[in-house]
């Protein structure tokens, strides 16, 4: 009998899983459920598209025919609303019940919304968000004041994009600096000073209070200072799409917990990509990897394991960004509470700061601000990790 695999989520993790499954087995029935109507595109290319470095067409990694050509049933515009583990079926938002032999959850994460909304407020996660932002920016005469609220990766992308459009930028965030829970004071101050040097007004330790404007945004109130803006880019974090799974019996932490084989605690159910909290062999705990490369690899690994292999996810994750010429690189696990010790090299005056995170005397991660050449050294050190020494917190899936 033909095996049916349902994959929930049509992003890079889910699509990589479908593609690999099809490569490995021409007969397996594959159903890919995607809430978005677009075929697979690269989120990572959206900033390039917004800066006119690539065309909108170039953002797509699969065309709409690819799914049928590969005998993948592609259901768009629908959400999975419930999993019935006992009877092995998924309930869709249109009421359809789909039975499965294997289930892969690849629902990703969604941007945390502000408590208020009005025209002029923009997010940057989907292609539709990017199109919306482009529309907002093109409507505004120059000079134009733009605001950003948030201090993470997406806020950083907004800085680059707004600067590219020649907007006058004010950025506000709750912490003392960008990535305030990960970076030390010197790293954070280096970024703050770099932003100020580039003509950006920085409001640190500023909590969002409300939006100003009737039908369209005219400004933002924070508990520190208010500022005018005609566009506001919001990047205050991402949450895994797991609210619909809370009574499923799946073990959920900061994402759906899986082992290195991408198996959840329930039989025949896998989780991959940004929705998964995978066991990291390089730091000894489960964590959400949050990178494109990890999501793609996890999709491929799950496909092999669905077909009875025993592949494991073992990757030193890196995420890298550039804020107006300043390189910021995160390697491995950068959780200050999980690390036993964090060593800092460099400072604002040197123009570069390296933080190295240690666990049981071994390197489990690092942050590099303008310290690109240290990357190779850190990765080499991490590859030498004695896994037996790292405290293991993985779990064994129950049958």
């Amino acid at each position, binding site marked *: 009998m033909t095996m049916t695999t349902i994959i929930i989520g049509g992003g890079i993790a889910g699509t990589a899983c479908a593609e690999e499954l099809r490569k490995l087995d021409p007969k397996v029935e594959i159903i890919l459920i995607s809430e978005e109507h677009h075929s697979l595109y690269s989120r990572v290319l959206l900033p390039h598209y917004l800066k006119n470095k690539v065309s909108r067409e170039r953002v797509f990694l699969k065309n709409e025919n690819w799914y049928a050509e590969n005998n993948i049933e592609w259901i768009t515009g629908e959400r999975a609303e419930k999993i019935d583990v006992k009877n092995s079926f998924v309930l869709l938002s249109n009421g359809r019940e789909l039975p499965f032999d294997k289930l892969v959850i690849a629902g990703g994460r969604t941007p945390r919304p502000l408590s208020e909304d009005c025209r002029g407020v923009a997010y940057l996660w989907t292609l539709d968000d990017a199109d919306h932002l482009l529309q907002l920016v093109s409507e505004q005469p120059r000079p134009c004041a733009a605001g950003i609220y948030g201090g993470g990766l997406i806020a950083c992308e907004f800085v680059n994009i707004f600067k590219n459009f020649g907007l006058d930028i004010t950025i506000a965030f709750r912490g003392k600096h960008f990535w305030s829970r990960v970076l030390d004071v010197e790293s954070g101050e280096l970024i703050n000073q770099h932003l100020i040097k580039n003509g950006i007004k920085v409001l640190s330790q500023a909590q969002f209070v409300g939006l100003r404007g009737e039908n369209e945004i005219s400004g933002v109130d924070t508990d520190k200072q208010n500022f005018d803006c005609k566009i506001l880019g919001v990047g205050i974090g991402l949450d895994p799409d797991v609210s619909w799974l809370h009574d499923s019996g799946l073990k959920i932490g900061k994402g759906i917990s899986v082992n290195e084989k991408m198996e959840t605690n329930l039989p025949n159910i896998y989780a991959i990509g940004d929705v998964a909290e995978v066991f990291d062999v390089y730091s000894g705990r489960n964590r959400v990897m949050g990178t494109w490369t990890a999501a793609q690899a996890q999709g491929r690994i799950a496909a092999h394991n669905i077909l009875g292999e025993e592949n494991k996810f073992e990757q030193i994750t890196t995420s890298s960004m550039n804020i107006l010429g300043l*390189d910021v690189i995160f390697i491995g696990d950068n959780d200050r509470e999980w690390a036993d010790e964090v060593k800092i090299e460099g400072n604002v005056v040197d123009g570069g700061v390296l933080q190295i995170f240690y666990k049981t005397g071994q390197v489990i991660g690092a942050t590099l601000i303008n310290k690109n050449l240290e990357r190779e050294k850190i990765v080499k050190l991490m590859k030498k990790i004695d896994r037996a020494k790292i405290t293991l917190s993985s779990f064994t899936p129950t049958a």
Partner: protein
Amino acid sequence: MKIKIKVDPDLCIGAAACVTVAPETFQLNNENKADVLDHGQAPNGPSYEREIEVTDEEMQTILLSAESCPVLAVFVYDENGKQLFPR
């Protein structure tokens, strides 16, 4: 077979997907961009472009690394100059 590999430094964001998949062919440089290597070596110094001789297996790995790049900054050509990736 001989292939040409090219990285567009203007698109490359240093995500290191290519380095993860094909460390013998790519290495990140001081600018946080991927240089192309010839079997782990950089004859005539660092470069974003290189013609190299590869086996079928190496070719598959290089194509997979190009496919893994989230910004499609890796271009692969056959010996006749035909673009193999992005397709």
